[in-house]
């Protein structure tokens, strides 16, 4: 509950004045009444001492008249929408400004409403919004179009420039292969540039805020350059901007030969990039973004800048991102070792050609060697399927062609021989054939004289006979074989045995077909000698025939003598057979009395003619 107290400060002149109790009470009542009037709570709890006192109402109307009127006016303002709106409108702008300066809440509260309002406005009448945006969109669209067109024209210029050159033809081929347009390929190859310097320049003072340069870029004093760039921007802006345009745009781009300066303007600073070559449009975007970020982050320092760049911190990293470059794609140079490939090829071809020529000459030499060989007739030599084929006729006794390959320095697998066998009549081959067929004894030498083969030395009878038979079988036109100088020689054992056998005379009694009784040992001896002879002859390579000749003396009739002599020979044959001599080696002949061993013999001597003799002949 509220309390009411009254105190009076003593003043010097009041100290002597006696206090009127009644006056004080009245004043207290009055003040209590005033308090009751002001505080409704007090009015309810403390009863009034002035109820029904008309003076109080009069006092109220006097004291509170002004407040009541003011309150009524206020009430009227709040109750009447028109008046309330007027009152709020008077302070609304200040209230918004105050709220916006305090924090961001106002903006975030208003944003949805603004969006809805904008949408409603566009729905209701799009023209209004177009009218609002036109001053912004017009320049934005035209700038964008200009830049696009600039890029396209740049591309077109390049395309025309390279359309009809050798380079152009190569690029056309590349475009065809890669499936892209020719213009794209031209751009790819020609958009080559290097950002050499980037200046960040304070707009108001023209002072340099930051400068970065590419390595090896020609360097001028960046302070002076930025000052002068700034001055030129001002000059252009002053000279060519329309008066009502106020702060018109400055220079976007300056070109001097291969150098281009691109300027990107921001509210407090501008970026100038010095570019050598043909920059792509994307660089503009990069410059714009870099400048935008710098302004976002350093808005205050940029505004306050008066020459001390320390307040901006280090901006070189940010500007460094604008130092872009694109290098001309280097011609794909062939490896310096690649020349080895053709060299190896050339060496291979040359060595192949040389080896082929060498081989060919060797084959020629080989063929010549073959032609020089007796018994070989070369009919053809050709190269087929990587191999040499030599064909012809060859006597089997002639030199083996394969043996001559080594002589001609040819590998056996490089040459294939195709030889038809034939019998050569060449004296040398004939000599070989004689040697092969007759196996001449060591004492026999065969020598060629022109078209004749001469046999010299000594040879057994049977060989000579073999040689004669060989000569007889030769075809007509063969070289002559001369055996005239050949001496007939026999084996001494054979000769001795033959002489011994041929010396035997087996006597017979007159008229008897059987040898005399004392002739048994002689027959044994003959059989023994014959067996030896046969053995010796076989050892020498031939066989023998023994002719048993029966004789009769001249007494008696011739016919009986003939049959007697035949009988005598037959008996001897059978007796020799009985002694182990093969009968097919023994032939018999009856000489009768026609071949007496001793003609004109006496009677005593006639006994000799009653006999059997033996003749040895040789056969092959």
């Amino acid at each position, binding site marked *: 509950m509220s309390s009411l107290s009254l105190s009076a400060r003593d003043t010097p002149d009041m100290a002597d004045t006696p206090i009127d109790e009644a006056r004080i009470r009245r004043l207290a009542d009055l003040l209590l009444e005033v308090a009751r009037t002001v505080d409704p709570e007090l009015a309810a709890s403390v009863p009034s001492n002035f109820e029904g006192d008309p003076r109080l109402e009069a006092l109220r109307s006097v004291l509170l008249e002004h407040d009541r009127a003011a309150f009524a006016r206020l009430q009227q303002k709040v109750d009447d929408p028109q008046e309330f709106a007027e009152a709020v409108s008077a302070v609304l702008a200040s209230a918004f400004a105050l709220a916006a300066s305090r924090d961001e809440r106002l903006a975030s509260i208003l944003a949805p409403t603004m969006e809805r309002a904008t949408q409603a406005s566009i729905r209701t009448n799009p023209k209004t919004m177009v009218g609002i945006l036109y001053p912004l969109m017009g320049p934005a669209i035209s700038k964008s179009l200009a830049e696009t067109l600039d890029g396209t024209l740049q591309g077109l210029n390049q395309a025309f420039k390279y359309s009809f050159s050798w380079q152009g033809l190569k690029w056309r081929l590349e475009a065809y292969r890669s499936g892209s347009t020719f213009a794209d390929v031209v751009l790819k190859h020609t958009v080559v540039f290097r950002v050499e310097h980037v200046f960040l320049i*304070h707009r*108001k*003072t*023209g*002072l*340099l805020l930051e400068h970065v340069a590419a390595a090896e870029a020609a360097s*001028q*004093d960046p*302070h*002076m*350059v930025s*000052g*002068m760039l700034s*001055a*030129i921007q*001002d*000059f252009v*802006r*002053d000279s060519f901007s329309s008066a009502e345009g106020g702060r018109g745009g400055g220079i976007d781009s300056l070109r001097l030969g291969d150098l281009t300066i691109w300027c990107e303007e921001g509210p407090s600073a501008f970026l100038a990039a010095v570019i050598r070559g043909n920059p792509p449009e994307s660089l503009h975007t990069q410059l714009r973004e870099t400048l935008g970020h710098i302004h976002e982050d350093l808005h205050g320092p940029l505004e306050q800048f*008066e*020459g*001390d*760049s320390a307040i901006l911190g280090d901006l070189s990293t940010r500007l460094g991102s604008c130092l872009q470059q694109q290098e001309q794609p280097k011609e794909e140079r062939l490896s310096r070792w690649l020349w080895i490939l053709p060299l190896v090829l050339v060496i291979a071809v040359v060595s192949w050609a040389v080896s082929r020529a060498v081989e060919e000459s060797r084959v020629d030499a080989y063929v010549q060697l073959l032609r020089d060989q007796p018994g070989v007739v070369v009919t053809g030599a050709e190269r087929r399927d990587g191999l040499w084929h030599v064909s012809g006729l060859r006597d089997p006794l002639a030199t083996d062609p394969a043996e001559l390959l080594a002589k001609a320095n040819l590998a056996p697998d490089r040459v294939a021989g195709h030889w038809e066998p034939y019998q050569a009549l060449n004296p040398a081959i004939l000599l070989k054939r004689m040697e092969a067929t007759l196996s001449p004894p060591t004492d026999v030498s065969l020598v060629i004289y022109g078209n004749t083969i001469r046999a010299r030395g000594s040879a057994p009878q049977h060989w000579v006979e073999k040689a004669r038979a060989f000569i007889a079988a030769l075809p007509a036109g063969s070289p002559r074989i001369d055996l005239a100088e050949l001496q007939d020689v026999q084996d001494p054992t054979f000769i001795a045995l033959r002489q011994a056998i041929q010396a035997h005379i087996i006597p017979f009694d007159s008229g008897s077909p059987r040898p005399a009784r004392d002739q048994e040992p002689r027959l044994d001896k003959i059989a023994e000698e014959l067996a030896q002879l046969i053995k010796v002859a076989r050892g020498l390579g031939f066989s023998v025939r023994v002719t048993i000749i029966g004789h009769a003396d001249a007494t008696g009739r011739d016919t009986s003598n003939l049959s007697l002599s035949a009988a005598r020979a037959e008996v001897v044959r059978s007796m020799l057979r009985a002694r182990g001599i093969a009968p097919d080696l023994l032939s018999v002949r009856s000489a009768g009395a026609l071949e007496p061993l001793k003609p004109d013999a006496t009677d005593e001597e006639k006994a000799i003619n009653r006999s059997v003799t033996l003749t040895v002949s040789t056969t092959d």
Partner: protein
Amino acid sequence: MIQKKVCVLGSFGVGKTSLVRRYVQSMFSDAYLTTVGVKVDKKTLAVGSADVTLVLWDIAGEDDINAIRMTYVRGAGGYFLVADGTRPETLEIARSIQARVNTEVGAVPFLLLLNKADLQESWGLSREPVEALEAAGWTILRTSAKTGENVEEAFLELAKRMLS
């Protein structure tokens, strides 16, 4: 490092370009003065322990036809007003320029250089106006581009004032 934009202003032919030519690092041709109307040079000097780079905007002289482009003055940290001691009217022009520059950039430090001090015997400048300017708080130096008198001092003085 601290940089300051310094404008060199004055009437045509008072020797602004000559005044700075021997004392600054220069890379642009004087032809810019007649084409663009300004030539930028640089002067680096030490004020106390700090290095200050003065980027000098040598602005083409004013005459009856061409007024100074005030755009070039914008953002200047200080400026030189140059008058020719042999031509009293150039002092008047300097005063006029100062008034305009003051409007554009505010009260930034400046020095008045009375150039051609080497030709003092042929000066037509009376004392009164100079003293009046000094009384008004202007700092005035007599300089000679020919002899180099007071030139270095002028740069140093302006640099000091801009840094203080």
